[in-house]
């Protein structure tokens, strides 16, 4: 199963980019090279979340691949980056916050491994935002980056699911 998780606050401008693209993918699917569409692939599950929380650990442990999509802070709004969240990448093991209720992708992956003995392949798409104020529209740079971002995501999902698809 491929788990695609878009998270962020859809009422805080560019922070809602993760939920938006995952809702789009879930509604429109992604046409793959063999003509099948990702929406018809049972192996793909789309999740739209405000924030990452610990109960995701179990679902993550069952997944073959997890794709996280989130907004990011940075100097070049509209840029997006792909990182493979491999175990080799060092990370800060501190709790995300003193009384915060969120978890990070790495925290969830690490805990899936320690609790359930499985850590899936995982990718994080980070989209640099410009405006995080109240509002449901995206800034111009993020809006402009959307087509390319959706294209990259469709390709990534296709790549992850290709082995699970029926041959035509």
């Amino acid at each position: 199963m491929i788990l695609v998780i878009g998270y962020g606050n859809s009422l805080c401008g560019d922070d809602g980019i993760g939920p938006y693209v995952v809702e789009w993918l879930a509604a429109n699917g992604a046409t793959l090279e063999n003509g099948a569409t990702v929406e018809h692939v049972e192996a793909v599950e789309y999740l739209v979340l405000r924030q990452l929380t610990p109960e995701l650990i179990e679902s993550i442990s069952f997944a073959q691949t997890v794709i996280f999509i989130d907004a990011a802070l940075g100097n070049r709004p509209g840029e997006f980056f792909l990182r493979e969240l491999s175990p080799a990448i060092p990370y800060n093991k501190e709790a995300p916050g003193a009384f915060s209720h969120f978890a990070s992708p790495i925290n969830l992956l690490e805990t899936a491994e320690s609790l359930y003995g499985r850590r899936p392949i995982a990718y994080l798409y980070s989209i640099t935002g410009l405006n995080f104020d109240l509002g449901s529209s995206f800034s111009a740079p993020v809006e402009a980056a959307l087509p390319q971002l959706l294209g990259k995501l469709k390709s990534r999902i296709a790549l992850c699911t290709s082995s699970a698809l029926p041959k035509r």
Partner: protein
Amino acid sequence: MSREIVIDPVTRIEGHSKITIQLDDTGNVQDAHFHVTQLRGFEKFVEGRPFQEMPSLMARICGICPVSHLMASSKACDALMRVNIPRPAVHLRRIMNLAQIVQSHALSFFYLSSPDLLLGMDAPPEQRNLFGVAQANPQLALGGVQMRKFGQQIIEMLGGKRIHPGWVVPGGVSEPLSSDKRDAILKMIPDVLTIAQNTLTWYKQVFERYQEEIDSFANFPSLFLALVNDEETLEMYDGKLRFIDSEMNLVTEIAARDYESVIAEAVEPSSYLKSPYFKPLGYPDGIYRVGPLARLNIVQRCGTPLADEELVEFRKLDRNSSFHFHYARLIEILYSIEKIQQLLNEPDILDTRIRAHASPNRHHGIGVSEAPRGTLIHHYEINDDGLITRANLIIATGHNNLAMNRGVLQVAQRFITGLQITDGMLNRVEAVIRAFDPCLSCSTHAIGQMPLQIQLLAPDGAVIDEVKR
């Protein structure tokens, strides 16, 4: 995309907060404050909206406890329409509210507080988190994940989605419960009951190690506030507002709609979080606490068999210590699971008459329910067209603001010595706030990862030491 680039991820913090600790001329802690440094403005921007939109708008206040806002908001709209909602709809709303309490308490206890309790207040911060718990006690961590999932699954089954479900509506709920869903929820109950009982057993073995913290974690006389029903059992959805004192004696009991006769809100220039207080005692003497500790202090019994057994033991403790919020939270998890089971077995639970329809019949509507962190009040005023002209929300974290501030001062005076903040000191200051489980999610925003800043101030206000987490 192979460049190595450092990215600051936008994290889902529950608003920004700051603690300032003021020292006197001799270097002792003189004063301490917990500040919330971010404004949301929900009360203002809903003005002019049709009242029917309020539940779904209000649910957006918070990604952690949207159900609580949905509940209080829908009740306020019921009051505007002047309807009594059908009994099966009340059962269903109660079930969702209890599921919310389970998942939220599970997050607070297993995710945020169990690391302190399992690994110790002085354990290195890189270990003192759920992931450290997973290493040290996998069963405890697994229980937390499963408990949280149980609550979320019920919310998703009833509401159609986990976050911001739109199923609770003015007048009732939008869809009846199917027998399949009822049976699916009932099937999950035995496992989570066992987890709740095992966790209570574990907690009772460890909490007495923390006597110093029990003595100093917001351990002082104050009033307590919660909803109470005619049977004086635990009540999360409806009833009267009852205040008791630190000796557990009744102070006053009023209809929830009359809350303004006893509760007023003060504003401090240093925080966006208001400070509600009990009017007859004035500000700031009218300090009171809400939430699991207050609820268990106020009721005579929980009203479910297993939770009632636990309540007997709980009542032997010093019930003015906010450290016991943790214990109370676990008992409420147990109660909520039992109560969900009871409600699902009500004979009319599958009834299809689940919603009352009406136009607005009143210009004022007040909805009060118990959220995981305490009493939640939504108060709306509308014009003849049903548009909102005024909204006032008193959230649980606000009710506890004065108590949290006093608790921070108490812990700082007990544990902070010298002119530098050590990690053990810092963690205890944080832990006393964690005991209240404040939900600053009501200011969820995206400005990087800085949920907490602690400043040590000299008598002249100069910053002596500062820690950011």
